[in-house]
């Protein structure tokens, strides 16, 4: 609470960018451009991974900060996209795990209107509601596959796991989802 108060009262939301040499300013600009291309996609991914707008914003911020700090680790500039989304996925995974230790979120219990935009979007459909019954691992595969539009090989890259594992998780996730929504849709189609 103290930190937040100090932060809000200080008016220093934007740092005065002090004088830096041209080279580092060029790096800043390049980073800024590369990141701004990523932000909305990242927000969508984080939003549906976490099903919580506030937390998704936090995750995007955190990933941005981490990317900035770790910029020197990025060897090839054209890999920025996959590198950044790897960071984002890691941030989200950590948050999901932390959350599973704290409290469970269930889409069903949330009000459809006026609530969280991601949660209400998910709550519109039985599939979306069933998503919250998946474990963190399975849920990440599903969201990356369908909301991130990533092929399974790329998912393996983002999560840092073998493609075989991704395939089996994907299959298990689909099975679980089907079992979960069958009663709702009234039998197999």
């Amino acid at each position, binding site marked *: 609470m103290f930190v937040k108060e100090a932060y809000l009262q200080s008016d220093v939301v934007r740092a*005065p960018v002090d004088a830096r040499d041209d080279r580092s300013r060029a790096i800043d600009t390049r980073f800024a451009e590369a990141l701004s291309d990523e932000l909305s996609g990242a927000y969508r991914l984080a939003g549906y991974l976490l099903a*919580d707008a506030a937390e998704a914003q936090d995750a995007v911020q955190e990933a941005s*900060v981490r990317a900035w700090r770790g910029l020197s680790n990025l060897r090839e500039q054209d890999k920025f996209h996959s590198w950044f989304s790897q960071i984002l996925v890691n941030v989200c995974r950590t948050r999901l795990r932390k959350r599973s230790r704290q409290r469970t979120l269930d889409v069903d219990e949330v009000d459809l209107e006026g609530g969280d935009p991601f949660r209400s979007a998910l709550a519109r459909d039985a599939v979306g509601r069933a998503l919250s019954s998946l474990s963190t691992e399975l849920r990440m595969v599903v969201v990356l596959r369908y909301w991130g539009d990533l092929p399974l090989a790329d998912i393996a890259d983002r999560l840092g796991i073998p493609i075989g594992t991704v395939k089996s998780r994907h299959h298990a996730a689909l099975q679980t989802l*089907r079992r979960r929504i069958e009663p709702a849709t009234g039998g197999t189609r």
Partner: protein
Amino acid sequence: MSDSDFDMEERLRRFAASTRTPPLPAETAALPWAVQSESRRPGFLGRLRSIDPGWGRAGRAVYGAVRITATLAVAFGILLVVGQTRTGGTASEIVVPVASPRQSPLAGAPSGPEVVVLPTSGVVDDVMASYVTGGVSQAEADGAAAVVVQLDTLGGSESSMTTIYKALENATIPTIVWVGPSGAKAASAGTFITLSAGLAYMADGTNIGAASPVAAGGGDLAATYGQTEADKVLADAEAAIRSIAQLRHPLAVDWAVTTVANAQSYTAQEALTAHGINGVADSIDQVVSQADGQTVTVNGAQVVVHTKGASTVTLNEDAIQSILQGLDDPNIAFILLVIGVLCVVVEFFHPTLVVGLLGAFALVLSFYGSGSLPLNVLGVALVILGIAMIVLEPNLPSHGLLMLAGLISFVVGGVAFYGSPGPYLPTATVAWPIIATMAAAAAAYGLLLVRTLLRMRNRAVPVGSGMVGTVNVIGMIGTVEKDLAPLGTVYVAREAWTARLAGEGSALRGTQVKVVRKEGLVLVVEPVA
């Protein structure tokens, strides 16, 4: 893949495509630029530095202390290995080549007697002891006619001195000490060494004596260590010189005792008259020619020295011995201590490993060097205290008083850095310009720290995940955490906020509420219908 999987895939695909993504709030999009004043993550050392065991503040302090201790231990270990193989009593038996390789090996030398010369200067320390011991052994092995130790010293440590005079006393060939050239001194420990040689010569214009426990600053031993302790040290030194002088000449005993008891210093002529030395010689050649025909006691037997027409072979200290002897300089030991303490302090505040390692090396070298110097514990403590105060200045606002006190402590400590606790040690002081320079360096470091800290304080607040900042909570649905009656706590946007009800009444824990507006840091909420 089964059909049902395929169906499920299609359904997910369509559903995902139909879900929209709200726009990212402007604050979130803007934040990455705000964090750019943060420094980027450094390389390998930086990662080493950022190891955080996660035990909180106390844990980090313990961790820092452990790391500094480990750094010191590593540095000390390396130096111990180097030092032991090159110097040190026990190691000289393990490592044979103590003196440097011969310049003119005997194998090719013309037949005839040979005299080995061991030039020494500076403080009597472990390095000199191992050099002389090794040189004497080599002269014995080469079958030299005699070994000459050329001496010019103000004194040194008692243990090194004992090693040297034992080596001279127990040599299997005649031993000669020559105090020279003109201007040289055989003070304190040097007196003992000179008198313990089989034959002793001094050049004109050299001095012997002042082997007494008089402190450098004019104060005496009793004032520093108490009368009993002083008497004990004095009696001990007197007994030692009495037994050494007895072997030289019975008439020299009383004269030798005055060098200890009264701190008397004598010229070459006076020493000769008192039977303290065998003659006055102005060069090695004169020493060699005068020594010829003299009778000395070697291994308890009377031996006549044959050095007529002998060639002289000089054994020099090797490079490492010279460097280690250089550390005995009172000024260098002081500088190394200050640099070492500063580096260790820097390491504590800004861990980099490299600086800490350098500091540890400097400290260990300083302690090594000051081992043969009359270090005054009080002076050392004052210097360290001074540095500590100078460095603490930025942390404890004292408007410069701490810095001033630190500087005073530092300078006083520097002046009193050396005392004179024994009859063997040389008198030593730190030069004024060096005290001033090091004090200025410490103060400059302290000021630099202040400047850096101030700059850090004025820097933008770093934005991390822990700060949600300007998240717009208005319109969000939250849960009452602490009953609103009307003031309480609401959990919204994954955070606990102080909240109050918009209207009358109360809301119990668990009720869903909607945020209507924000008043400062208080949310105004109304129950969800």
